[in-house]
């Protein structure tokens, strides 16, 4: 059964992959899951659980603890220090085989559900009784700036930062009491989640749905229920809405075409979308390709000045089993994308060459028409009969008409041995070239392209990256390594075809007109004499150009081979398809959370990235690093 039997696009993430991402977030952005008041921010070692942060976090001076306001002391402006840590987080997509759900959540894990287990610690910085005894009454006042109390050497409490006595006389908004003993409570929290697409058609979002929540070993039960109720509110009203993922609606891909992606409607064949099954979170999407929003004009032949990509090498997979993530495109979707690329394709180029008796040049702008793409069971991709048509194809010729000499006949001959004295000769067309002309062949010439392609991935180490750089340095310097996706041509045929017979007539007429131009100043009889001497244009240009009977073959040779038009077309296509020009480059490691101010981005290494093609779909397979 194919992944895309019931949709155009299939995206799945294995629960092991999700847990790897969660692990990376915990280590690289610890301040997201370790919260505490200012005392804990300054002294993370006081937390209930030691934080296992990535070394780069401390190297870059990133905080280990996210700052939260103090816990208010009722009826006063005092607050108390506390911390909250999520120490572990695991997800387990149906069927449950990672997390053992507590009885309260009715194990085993129900179909189309995901289990979540989090280890959480709450630390309360209980002030010492001696300190509390020395604190004055401080009524609640919400309109004053927050000030922290600090005890001087003489035991007297002062406000920090330093303020004068007059300010001290005014009741502060919040005064944090330094923590004494830290009272830690660590619990396991279990939950179950489902997922749905919500929102109106065209603006749908992927949103979580809380099934249940359970705090283990908390008593009395009423307290447990109260806390679970509160946590449910936090998850339902705070966490899940924040984690909603909008589905792509419109996206212009390099100006060539636009994509419209919508969730595939549920049906008997596809009862669940999204689906939580097979240890994977799956999403099924349908694709519509529309015209791109080009900014006018085709791409120039010169192209941009971006440096060439680093050469990659094939890197094999080291793991076995299900991939951490899989994204598949059905053959129908590939065909739609092919149409999008084809219809948005436009390139221009030019070239010239001196071929001795004549010179040729061209200026062309091409677009693509017709053709089809076919995924094959042997893993190859076949592009068939793709027409390269011309918006413009100016084909210019510089003709060096052979020197023709009249006269020079023999006046005094040598019997049986040639001539002794010749009459003066009179020669025409001694210049090079004698005439120049251009033809617009765009309406009359087509090129057909067929190719067999192989999809593969390679890993390229950025050559500009130094040994001293870590992944974060490289990302910041714009020098990450890359996984590269190639569509390499196995065979590539470019044939000039469908050259209309009228091209020969056009050529003759153009030469004729050019001759009329250069003969223009001569009297009529002289024009006629020279034309008679030159003979029919068809013979003249046939001789000069070595035209032969097959103008298609001749044009194919001159345009395609001598002038390199085929190379230009191949290069243009190769920008997208050929060796040395990756179709796409995915930076490694992948950025899961972008940098936030001074906080480093959360990066997850891509351990393996592969492309699999069979006769029904094309799949991108990913293993994430630990």
């Amino acid at each position, binding site marked *: 059964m194919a992944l895309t039997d019931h949709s155009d696009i299939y995206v799945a993430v294995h629960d092991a992959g999700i847990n790897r991402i969660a692990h990376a977030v915990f280590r690289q952005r610890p301040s997201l899951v370790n919260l505490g008041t200012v005392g804990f921010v300054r002294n993370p070692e006081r937390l209930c659980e030691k934080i296992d942060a990535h070394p780069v976090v401390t190297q870059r001076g990133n905080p280990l603890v996210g700052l939260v306001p103090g816990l208010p002391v009722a009826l006063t402006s005092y607050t108390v220090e506390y911390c909250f840590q999520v120490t572990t987080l695991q997800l387990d997509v149906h069927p449950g085989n990672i997390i053992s759900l507590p009885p309260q959540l009715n194990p085993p894990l129900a179909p189309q559900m995901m289990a979540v287990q989090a280890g959480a610690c709450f630390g309360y910085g209980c002030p010492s009784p001696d300190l509390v005894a020395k604190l004055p009454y401080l009524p609640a006042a919400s309109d004053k700036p927050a000030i922290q109390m600090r005890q001087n050497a003489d035991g007297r409490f002062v406000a920090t930062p330093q303020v004068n006595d007059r300010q001290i006389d005014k009741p502060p908004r919040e005064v944090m009491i330094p923590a004494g003993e830290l009272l830690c409570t660590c619990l396991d929290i279990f939950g179950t989640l489902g997922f749905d697409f919500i929102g109106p058609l065209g603006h749908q979002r992927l949103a979580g749905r809380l099934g249940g929540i359970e705090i283990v070993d908390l008593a009395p039960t009423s307290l447990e229920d109260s806390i679970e109720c509160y946590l449910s509110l936090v998850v339902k009203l705070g966490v899940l809405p924040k984690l909603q993922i909008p589905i792509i609606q419109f996206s212009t891909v390099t100006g060539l075409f636009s994509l419209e992606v919508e969730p595939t409607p549920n049906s008997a064949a596809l009862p669940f979308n999204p689906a939580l099954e097979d240890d994977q979170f799956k999403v099924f999407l349908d694709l519509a390709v529309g015209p791109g929003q080009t900014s006018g004009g085709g791409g120039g032949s010169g192209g941009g000045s971006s440096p060439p990509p680093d050469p990659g090498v094939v890197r094999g997979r080291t793991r076995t089993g299900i991939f951490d993530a899989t994204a598949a495109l059905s053959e129908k979707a590939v065909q739609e994308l092919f149409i999008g690329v084809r219809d948005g394709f436009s390139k221009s180029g030019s070239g010239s060459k001196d071929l001795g008796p004549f010179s040729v040049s061209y200026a062309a702008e091409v677009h693509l028409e017709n053709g089809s793409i076919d995924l094959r069971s042997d893993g190859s991709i076949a592009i068939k009969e793709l027409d390269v048509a011309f918006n413009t194809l100016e084909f210019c010729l510089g003709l060096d008409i052979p020197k023709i000499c009249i006269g020079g*006949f023999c006046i005094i001959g040598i019997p049986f041995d040639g001539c002794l004295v010749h009459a003066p000769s009179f020669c025409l067309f001694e210049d090079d070239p004698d005439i120049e002309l251009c033809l617009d062949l765009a309406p009359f010439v087509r090129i057909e392209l067929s190719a067999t392609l192989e999809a593969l991935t390679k890993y390229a180490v950025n050559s500009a990256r130094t040994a001293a750089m870590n992944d974060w340095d490289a990302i910041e310097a714009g020098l990450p390594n890359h996984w590269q996706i190639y569509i390499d041509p196995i065979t590539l045929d470019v044939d000039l075809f469908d050259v209309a017979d009228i091209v020969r007539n056009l050529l003759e007429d153009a030469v004729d007109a050019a001759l009329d131009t250069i003969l223009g100043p*001569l009297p009529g009889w*002289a024009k006629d004499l020279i*034309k008679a001497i*030159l003979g*029919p244009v068809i013979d003249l240009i046939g001789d000069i150009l070595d035209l032969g009977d097959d103008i298609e073959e001749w044009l194919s040779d001159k345009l395609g081979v001598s002038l390199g038009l085929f190379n230009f077309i191949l290069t243009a296509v190769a920008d997208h398809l050929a060796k040395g020009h990756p179709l796409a480059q995915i930076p490694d490691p992948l950025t899961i959370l972008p940098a936030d101010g001074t906080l480093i981005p959360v990066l997850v290494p891509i351990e393996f990235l592969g492309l699999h093609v069979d006769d029904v779909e094309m799949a991108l397979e990913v293993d994430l690093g630990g």
Partner: protein
Amino acid sequence: MKPFVDRATLEQTSFDSALPSGTAAVVHRFQREGRYAVALSPDGKQVVETRTIYVEHPRADAAAAEGAKPRDIVLEPPRPFPEHPQLPQAIELDVSRSATLAGAAAADADQIATPQVAGLVTGGYASFTAPTGGAHHVVITRIGADGEQEKEFDSTRLGATDAFAITLFRPGTYAMRNAVGGREGRLVVHYPQIGRTAYRPAEPVTVAVHERGFEPGELTIGPGQGVIFQVAAESRITVELLEPDDGPGDAGRKTSLATRRVRPLVRPGSERLDPSGEGSPTAGDGEPGGST
């Protein structure tokens, strides 16, 4: 950019054996050894330039005839062609002035030798021509051992064995005249026809010039076809256009050279038709240019 055609030569309609230029040339044969002075004169009177031609037996013959060397052959200064074991049997001399050649007509200078001193074997030929408009009268005098002078050749009065060759391009009717004997003939250059094959002029026509006149006295040739006047009696030959032939005119002239290769149409059950309507092939390659 060099013009693709020399219009002055193409449109030349007047030819004079006394002043050979353009497509015209006069040929003279040197039968005797000796030193010859070639005098160039624009008007037949004032000499503006003199050149020298040495004529001698072929070297092998000269060695065999060492003892029989004619007394009046003087190769002084010493033979100027030591590097040439064999002198040519024919030379071609540009009879325009050297100064002229070095200037405006220099573009054609490489086609014709213009030595101040030339050598020729006994019985060899010299042809004289010049770029259009640059011709001179040519008078050749044989210089004897004692400095005595004997007229050998005068382009205003060609002698027996001399020849005058011209190539005519301009269609029309020309008068052939011998100024010495007052004889006259007619020469017609027919209008060129653009055909299915490239036109190439036929072989040149030879016209004998006798005291009694030209033979043939009337002839028709194709444009670009040569005419060789073989002189049998003293003569000064002129050929001048009397009546131009402008052909069908601009209205009737074919404006296109694009003669299509049109496949003959064949009606079922009928003979082939020629859709071009051009009929039989026009005068072209190998068209006879014989006398009428």
